């Protein structure tokens, strides 16, 4: 029955892509969308942003492979991961405003469920440093309940799953040195200049 092969639709690729793009909305209506992701433009290139029902759970710089980021989310949060730009409109809008210099505070809920214990506390402390200000590893460690843990605080900040929005870039060495940064020190410098802190 070779003639049956002619029943193959020729545009299955395009048609299925269009159908797949509609799935996120249906999934959300059915309460089955656990992790929604999208890309957000930035001066560094396209960022990957992902949200749960609780809030923004991940922001990845362009150098992080998308597959790896999604696999990590699938394993640590839920495998129900779908691209759903609509769910991230607000995130993308606020990031855009921030990079244009018109926004000094993110009004976004964040979900720190990718982090644990001390790391979570360090990131919460970093989240309270206001726009245009900086703090030190030692200070942040102290606020997280471990005054002598500045090295550990540095590691915790380096594993920040939501950079920019949780402003780990505002944490510097006690002597004023820039310190490290997940996305590379150049980006840290860029963000601090954007905020007028350098």
């Amino acid at each position: 029955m070779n003639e049956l092969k002619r029943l193959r639709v020729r545009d299955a690729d395009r048609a299925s892509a269009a159908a797949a793009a509609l799935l996120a909305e249906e999934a959300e209506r059915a309460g089955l969308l656990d992790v929604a992701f999208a890309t957000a433009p930035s001066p560094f290139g396209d960022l990957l942003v992902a949200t749960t029902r609780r809030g923004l759970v991940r922001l990845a710089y362009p150098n992080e492979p998308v597959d790896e980021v999604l696999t990590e989310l699938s394993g640590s949060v839920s495998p129900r991961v779908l691209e759903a730009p609509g769910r991230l409109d607000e995130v993308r809008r606020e990031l855009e405003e921030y990079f244009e210099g018109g926004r000094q505070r993110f009004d976004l809920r964040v979900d720190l469920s990718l982090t644990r214990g001390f790391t979570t506390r360090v990131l919460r402390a970093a989240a309270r440093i206001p726009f245009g200000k900086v703090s030190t590893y030692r200070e942040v460690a102290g606020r997280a309940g471990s005054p002598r843990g500045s090295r550990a605080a540095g590691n915790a900040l380096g594993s920040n799953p939501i950079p920019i929005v949780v402003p780990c870039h505002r944490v510097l060495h006690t002597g004023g040195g820039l310190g490290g940064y997940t996305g590379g020190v150049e980006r840290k410098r860029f963000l601090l200049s954007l905020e007028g802190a350098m």
Partner: protein
Amino acid sequence: MSLPPFSAFLEEHRVVVYRFLAATVGRDHADDCFQETFLSALRAYPKLRPGANLRAWVLTIATRKAIDHGRRRGRAAVPMAEVPERAVAEAPDGEPELWRAVQELPPMQRAAVVHRYVLDLPYADVALALGCSEEAARASAHEARKKLRATLREER
């Protein structure tokens, strides 16, 4: 090894699922059945064991949706006094006769023949998708082939 994110699973299997549905339920209903298939898959997805045969699994769901669709349509068609000649314009790419003939097969036979001859699946996979033995899958495809030949002969 853990499950791939659903987005990757969807990307990998969307074309084969769409091909299957377009050939079994017709182009006009393929989109709806596609949504139903992947929504069901999404619901059950977190409970799958890592390493499961995902392609066979999603084709099983698609087969069930196609068969349900066929039955719903079969039932709905009965009470209507005037059934408009079903628009066979939904034939994927021409071949309206062949298309109509496939559409008139009972749902299980239709699914069997599409899996085997449109998607080129081996009988072991056809059986998986249909949830029956390999022997029963062969029998369904055989029956379907016989009917298709007869129908196509009549029309020519």
